[in-house]
């Protein structure tokens, strides 16, 4: 009985720790940067910053406009998907399975308080799951680049 209680205590402690770590990890992977500019200006600045880093914009998903079709009014929210051919080549050379992480994306939205926010997930967090050194490096490079893009877009 005592042994069973011990096992139960260890298992539940591990479970609580795991649950507590999950959101914490997710939080550290997500980056939110408030912009001083309006929504539209921020979107334009994100696009300009991406292009200045040699990124190609693959698609822009306009959630606000799409939601109108289903009778919902939402504030400005766009996802900008982007990629860079040479980075794609490096990534596929390292592990084709990591194609799941492509294209990169930045989400720009108007928060409840009226501020525009530029959000993205750190690429290194996504690539970490593959356990490859090359991918880790690519992830770190992309993190730095995304940080610079977000800084440029929100100033």
């Amino acid at each position, binding site marked *: 009985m005592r042994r069973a209680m011990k096992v139960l205590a260890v298992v539940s402690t591990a479970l609580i720790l795991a649950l507590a770590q999950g959101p914490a990890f997710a939080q550290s992977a997500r980056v939110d940067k408030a912009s001083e500019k309006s929504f539209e200006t921020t979107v334009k600045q994100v696009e300009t910053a991406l292009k200045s880093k040699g990124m190609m914009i693959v*698609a*822009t998903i*306009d959630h*606000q*406009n799409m*939601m*109108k*079709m*289903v*009778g919902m009014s939402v504030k400005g929210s766009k996802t900008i998907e982007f990629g860079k051919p040479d980075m794609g080549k490096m990534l596929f050379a390292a592990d084709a399975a990591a194609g799941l992480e492509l294209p990169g994306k930045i989400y720009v939205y108007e928060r409840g308080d009226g501020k525009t926010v530029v959000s993205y997930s750190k690429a290194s967090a996504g690539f970490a799951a593959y356990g490859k050194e090359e991918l880790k490096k690519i992830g770190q490079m992309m993190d730095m680049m995304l940080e610079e893009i977000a800084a440029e877009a929100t100033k």
Partner: protein
Amino acid sequence: MLITPIDIAFVLVGLAITVGALARRWAVPPPEPAAVASPGELLLTLLALIPAAVGPNVLVVALTPGMPAMPQLVRWVLLPSVVLLLLVWGVAALRGYERLTNRIWTGLWVGFATTAALDVFRLTSFSLGLLPGNLPRMFGVLIFDTMAQGPTPLSDIAGGLYHYWVSACFGLTYALVCGRTRCWGGLIWGLIIEVGMMTTPPMVIAMDTGYFGLKLGQGILNGVFIGSLIPHISYGIALGVLQERYTRQRGSLIGLVSAVVWPPR
């Protein structure tokens, strides 16, 4: 804005034509005597039924898993079907098949205009949240393959035109198959269309409502079903009232087939 000025413009045009046509022919004129049927007229009638079927079904096919998408279907199936209809109409006019030309013209314009009678209730249902989406706007982004960007005025016009064309095709099918009927015939046709809409991919799969909106878990009297049934009843009544006044001759497609296959001695 959930209901766009383009939605309203389509409704106003349709209502103006419907009301004007009804005012012009308030009393139901007596039917004209049926013309002698010929194999040529039967063949052209059957050919005219192809574009009438294509109009609504390109959407059904496009939203069926594994089938080509709307942009391809519009380019390679829908637009050629419109050309086919124009050719059939032209040949029918040249050969003097007045019954057929009357049915093609009446079916198309009545079906087109009375969509407004449907839209008045459809847009109301949409505004009340009964319908899950403003379907013509979705048709537009499907036609241009711009779902990610959402609707634009151009896609709204294209979607609206497609929506009205589909109804014109239903009007055409009714005129070609049933000929001149009493007005309640249109109501039955509207109810058949409703059943079709509630059981085909655009609603069942794309809108994820399940058959007759039952997936919403509110029983058969759910918002989607009621919000769609009332517009189709309205469309059916308006269609029946105008078809009765503008289709000149009685006689169904079955009658036409019988007259050609077993000509009266």
